[in-house]
């Protein structure tokens, strides 16, 4: 296995290849549960478990990809800048909606932590679960959470949001397109936004706006919640 131990690009190749497979499966089946990211993670875990290869062999190369998260997050400033006009037009509703969403997320995680008796580290791990992975992963690390579990929580949250958004918002009588977009983006980040874009242009723009705003607000709110318990 020394070939693999020394290879940097093995980890990169298998990551890209399984993601490619995931996108292919998703396009074939068109269901939110077949998320390319989730498929790729599962395939690589199965591969490593099946071949008995060490995680460190995979991560040597794969870390090369992880390093790009910081510059990619910086790039999110551009869509945020592009949507400033939309934010200004609906400022009051948008800001109130996103703030209440971020606080609600913290309250829910705290309540569940108390009910299910999670330890403090799991509590910290779950606090960033509604926001985009790029920001959530950094926030979880800063607060002392388990980043791996945060990433999976974020993905699962996104998939759930994507699946329920349309029917659930109808059920609770949220009909305003701006409100729909904010609700989806605040609760289910990028993966929810994919659904919001299907619902309409306003929904999509508002949802992607709330990814950035909710992400930044959670960076402020989550550490406060971390001090509560």
């Amino acid at each position, binding site marked *: 296995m020394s070939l693999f131990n020394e290879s940097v690009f093995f980890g990169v190749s298998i990551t890209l290849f399984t993601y490619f497979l995931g996108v292919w499966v998703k396009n074939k089946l068109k269901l939110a549960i077949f998320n390319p990211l989730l498929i790729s993670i599962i395939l690589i875990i199965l591969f490593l478990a099946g071949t008995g290869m060490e995680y460190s062999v995979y991560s040597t190369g794969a870390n090369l990809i992880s390093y790009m998260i910081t510059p990619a997050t910086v790039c999110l400033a551009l869509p945020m800048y592009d949507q400033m006009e939309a934010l200004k037009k609906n400022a009051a509703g948008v800001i109130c909606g996103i703030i209440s969403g971020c606080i609600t997320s913290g309250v829910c995680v705290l309540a569940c932590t108390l009910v*299910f008796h999670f330890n403090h580290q799991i509590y910290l791990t779950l606090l960033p679960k509604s926001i985009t992975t790029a920001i959530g992963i950094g926030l979880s690390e800063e607060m002392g959470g388990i980043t791996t579990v945060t990433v999976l929580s974020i993905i699962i949250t996104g998939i759930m949001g994507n699946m329920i958004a349309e029917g659930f918002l109808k059920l609770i009588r949220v009909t305003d397109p701006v409100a729909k977009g904010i609700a989806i983006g605040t609760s289910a980040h990028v993966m929810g936004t994919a659904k919001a874009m299907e619902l309409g242009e306003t929904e999509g723009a508002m949802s992607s706006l709330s990814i950035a705003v909710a992400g930044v607000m959670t960076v402020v709110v989550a550490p406060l919640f971390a001090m509560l318990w």
Partner: protein
Amino acid sequence: MKYVNQFLVIISISFLGEVIHHFIPLPIPASIYGMILLFLLLELQIIKPAQIRETCDFMIQAMPVMFIPAGVGLLEKWGYISDIWLPLLATLAISTVIVMAISGWVTQFVNRRFGSGKEDAS
């Protein structure tokens, strides 16, 4: 040279984010400082969107791939959650539903109350 120049801007700002992170002792990731810095530079028109557009589009599109290694790390960390995965899933489901409801209701209520956005929305 276009992509080299665009990358230079993005990577330099990422580095500045790390520098700020080093000097300010808050639990805020370096990437967020970088993002806010780039946003300000765009708002102040020191950097024009055209100077970074293609690279930003590429990086954002490729983003999901970047989270795969962290997800695979579960293989090593499974022990932390092997006993509690069901309550964890329940927590995620409960809070997703409640957050969606609250943020939707609040936005709709405020928009209707203060009229802003009602015309734009239709």
